[in-house]
């Protein structure tokens, strides 16, 4: 393998990217291209009572305004649970500010944008739930039919009661993290083209799950998969944000409805309001340790704000919980995690997939414990850190490539950490 691993290679598409020749979705043009804009929900939690698009349709240059009335048989979509509507219909609910009410197709970007303002919307407002703790109250209105707790997972290893009984010190704290946008530099964009003869929809659009996205679009439109073709251009960053459907189905509808090539590019604001975020989490951690600095028990309750739709929440929130002890050996662990619907922008995948939030909690717990025990926090970490043979909270034996102790030692060395004086 010498010559491959450890060697530098020039990136295959770097030349196209430094010359500006690489084609990203928004760089694709057709002569008879139409521009698409989406009318979003004016309220984060409300019933749609009236939707009047007539003024928008009358605006010169507007080719088509699509609403749920035009496509009553569309299926919901989603990565794990199909709970997200393509278009909110009359009498249906909007659950966050990114929900789509209408799709405007026009001769220019400017006309499409102006048409959005001409669409009249009447809603019946409901209580807006922005806090997952409120969403979990018995008297909270249900955002989805089956209630606000999307999914609950449990974790049990050893005997935490015994572990806490054997502890000399127990630290119990609550940690909260915030929404973070992955913010790939290229906003969501794509071009769609419908070939009437073959019935194939071509989409030039970025995705992190090409075949899953193809399948999800197809089931949503009620088409066989071979009628949806996705062509992946250069991708201007993803970081988890491009796992979810964004412009895809709206582009397909616009292309089918007009028979012309269509382009939809989100503004940065639209990207922030509409597409996934890193989950805000409430993490309640209880950790026990002995006087000489060995962890005996760790208990955690995790509440992840899923926002309006499930996206990757069923996987992200409990993965976070599984990492509740970080890279430290703990014999006795118990956990519960809830992914909870709110009317916030939905949460999904982002680098780390739930573990990043947890790191804030477990490393804070480690610092507080070290401080209370009068131990050097680096030494305290080192003596509890995983080694080959360690058993993770969810029962995985770490059989190879466990380098956390070396990493800590190297970090001590590189940062010139002198330790804390224990008085």
């Amino acid at each position: 393998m010498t010559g491959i691993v450890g060697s530098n290679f020039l990136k295959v598409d770097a030349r196209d990217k430094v010359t500006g020749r690489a084609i990203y979705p928004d760089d694709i043009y057709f002569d008879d291209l139409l521009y698409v804009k989406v009318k979003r929900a004016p309220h984060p939690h409300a019933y749609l009572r009236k939707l009047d698009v007539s003024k928008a349709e009358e605006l010169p240059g507007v080719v088509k305004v699509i609403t749920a009335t035009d496509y009553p048989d569309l299926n919901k979509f989603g990565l794990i649970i199909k709970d997200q509507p393509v278009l909110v219909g009359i009498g249906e609910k909007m659950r966050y500010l990114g929900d789509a009410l209408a799709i405007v197709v026009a001769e220019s970007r400017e006309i499409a944008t102006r048409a959005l303002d001409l669409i009249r919307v009447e809603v019946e407002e409901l209580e807006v739930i922005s806090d997952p703790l409120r969403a979990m109250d018995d008297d909270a209105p249900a955002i989805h039919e089956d209630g606000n707790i999307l999914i609950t997972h449990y974790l049990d290893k050893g005997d935490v009661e015994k572990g806490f009984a054997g502890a000399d010190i127990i630290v119990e704290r609550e940690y909260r993290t915030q929404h973070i946008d992955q913010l790939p530099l290229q906003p969501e964009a794509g071009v769609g083209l419908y070939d009437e003869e073959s019935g194939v929809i071509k989409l030039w659009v970025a995705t992190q799950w090409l075949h899953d996205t193809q399948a999800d679009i197809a089931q949503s439109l009620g088409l066989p998969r071979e009628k949806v073709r996705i062509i992946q251009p250069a991708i201007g960053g993803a970081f988890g944000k491009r796992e979810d459907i964004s412009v895809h189905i709206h582009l397909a509808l616009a292309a089918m409805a007009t028979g012309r090539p269509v382009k939809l590019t989100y503004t940065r604001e639209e990207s922030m309001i509409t597409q996934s975020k890193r989950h805000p989490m409430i993490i309640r951690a209880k950790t026990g340790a002995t006087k000489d600095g060995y962890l005996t028990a760790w208990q955690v309750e995790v509440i992840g704000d899923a926002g309006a739709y499930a996206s990757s929440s069923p996987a992200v929130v409990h993965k976070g919980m599984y990492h509740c002890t970080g890279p430290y050996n703990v014999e006795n662990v118990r956990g519960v995690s809830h992914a909870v619907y709110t009317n916030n922008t939905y949460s999904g995948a982002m680098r780390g997939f739930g573990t990043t939030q947890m790191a804030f909690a477990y490393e804070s717990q480690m610092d507080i414990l070290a401080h209370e025990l009068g131990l050097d926090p680096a030494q305290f970490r080192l003596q509890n850190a995983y080694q080959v043979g360690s058993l993770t909270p969810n029962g995985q034996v770490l059989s190879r490539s466990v380098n956390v102790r070396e990493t800590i030692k190297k970090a001590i060395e590189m940062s010139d950490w002198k330790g804390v004086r224990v008085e």
Partner: protein
Amino acid sequence: MKITITVNGEKREVETTPSTRLLDLLRDDLHLTGTKEGCGKGECGACTVIMNGELVASCLVLSPQADGAEITTIEGLGTEEELDPIQEAYIEAGAVQCGFCIPGMVLASKKLLEENPQPDEGEIRRGLSGNICRCTGYQKIIDAVKLAAKKLAGTGKLAGAGKSRGKGGGR
């Protein structure tokens, strides 16, 4: 309305409107799509071009403001056969990831190296402070600028140093 602009050395007459941004004119009308839109607010630097010798965010320039201007976009650097040394340096230093920020980064690097052929790390960081990379590739981008400075010193290609500079639109 009609405006005249010189883009990458070529004089162009373009039909435009008072509300068209220079960014849209370059992309939609001239199909110079190397200039990117990341935020539309002059924050991210993806739409950076050089206008009358100054770095500008082309999303903040209205096309009539560019009437008579000389503009360099990423397509104006190097030739089909031979890349600009700055472009070469970006490839060799591994500074390119998703690439969406790279046209703006390369142009900001060009402007920096024209004014300061041997910048230190702090000066490089300041020179690129108007450009955001979200793949977090900054370290290698800084390496690329250092490498470009070396290459340019070697070839004597300190293009444009001392060129007259126009007003307006600067970041």
